[in-house]
């Protein structure tokens, strides 16, 4: 069965590129939303196989969104990967310590993004 990924990012262009990469290169189904709360809402309604989460978003940012997902039994087990332009080592370690599966950097190579996601999520090709 085709895996479903939820992409949460406030930048429409970034969402479009991530979607194309995950659909065309990764061969997955993608749902994308433009903010943290919308992401939590979408994850509750139809839990995806994984969430690709931007960090710096207005309002509910990436880490806050991650906590909201953790607080809800329906979404607590969904693996989350941060995709961020903030690649500070300390931040990365803090997020991993919170339980985030992986932290991938922006800009990313769209041909490699699905491979990197598979690696951190432990998915078979």
């Amino acid at each position, binding site marked *: 069965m085709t895996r479903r990924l939820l992409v949460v990012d406030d930048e429409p262009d*970034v969402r479009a590129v991530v979607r*194309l990469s995950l659909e065309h*290169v990764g061969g997955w189904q993608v749902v994308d939303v433009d903010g943290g709360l919308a992401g939590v809402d979408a994850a509750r309604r139809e839990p995806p196989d994984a969430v690709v989460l931007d960090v710096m978003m207005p309002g509910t940012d990436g880490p806050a969104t991650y906590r909201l997902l953790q607080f809800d039994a329906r979404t607590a087990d969904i693996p989350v990967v941060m995709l961020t*332009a*903030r690649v500070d080592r300390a931040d990365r370690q803090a997020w991993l310590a919170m339980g985030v599966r992986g932290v991938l950097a922006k*800009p*990313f*190579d*769209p041909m490699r993004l699905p491979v990197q996601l598979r690696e951190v999520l432990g998915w078979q090709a």
Partner: protein
Amino acid sequence: MTPADVLDDPVRLRAVDDLGLVGQPFEDRFDRVTRLLGRVLDVPVTLLTLVTEDAVAVVSTAGGGEVRRIERDAAFCTEVVQSQEALLVPDTTADSRWATSPLGTSPAGTRAYAGVPLRGPGGQVVGTLCGLDVRSRRWNDGDLAALVDLSRWAEVELARGDAERQRALGEQAIARMKDELLSVVSHELRTPLTSLKGALGLLTAGVVGALPPSGQELTRIALENADRLSRLVDEICDLERLSAGQVVLERRPHPLSDVVRHAVGAVSVQAEQARVVVRTSIGDVTTWLDGARISHALKHLLENAVRASPAGSAVDVRGRTTDDGVLLEVEDRGCGIDPRDLERVFGSFTRGDSSDNRTHGTGLGLALARTVVEAHGGRLTARTVGRGTTFTVALPQRAAARRVGA
């Protein structure tokens, strides 16, 4: 402005605040003024005060003990600030203005008072310089002149402290602005770069359909330049954070050969394209360093060396222990660097030959490498002997020579 307005004028109160002296320990530079005033006026108590919103704060005193605060209503200083003029009271008990006020019968037993206003750097009256006596005094012109002269000295000291404080605040503000700018640069530049590189990467790979050869050439050029811009952003951020001391090195024992292998691997594609061979000769040594960062620094040296190398030549990487640490050398067979430019190449955005456009470095690699090496307490130097350039990384003992498992 009526007198009461002067006392509680927000601009004046802010001027007092800005001095940053209320509640601070007594300072010698003000104590010198009050001590001298005591001797000149021959009074038991002198004060240098700032009149705040709710009190008269003592900034310095000679003979006044540990008193730091006087009620505004109980102080002649309040009157001096209100009137913005000197106040000479020979005998408080004999003066009709004060006989019935708390000032005239103050428990401190002040019989005579002589005070002049002190102006802050902005011209507002911020406080007073004054002398108090327990006896009645017949103040003369000489007393007033001494007070006025010493008040000028006190004002100079007030202004000096203010200037230092302003400078410190300015430096903090600049550091903060730099941090903010960096954070904005890293996010606001990387976000459009993400879309740009993503879109170009998908186009170039033919994910949405094959492009004609000329189209492929164009997207390749666009993508390469987006990559270059992206590296530049990374390196500017790295360099700024390293220079600002914001980076904590994560030192662990690393086999030197591992660190070198990582760096060599990172330039293998570039070396292959340039038809340059990278040869390594690394001694069996385990060093105590931030492996990722030193490896990164070394990668910059290698990129630089490969760029400088003619096709078909070799770049040598040698590593060994020395008496006081570890030495890493990167030698190329390029055209060398003019001895006058050997230091300049470590600056930002400088290149050995600025007319050479085929080099696609960001111009920050060597600056970054040096910053990383120096953060380890080491040194990065360059020398040209005959043809070619040798870059030498010297890491001190402290960062090296810890054999683990031995």
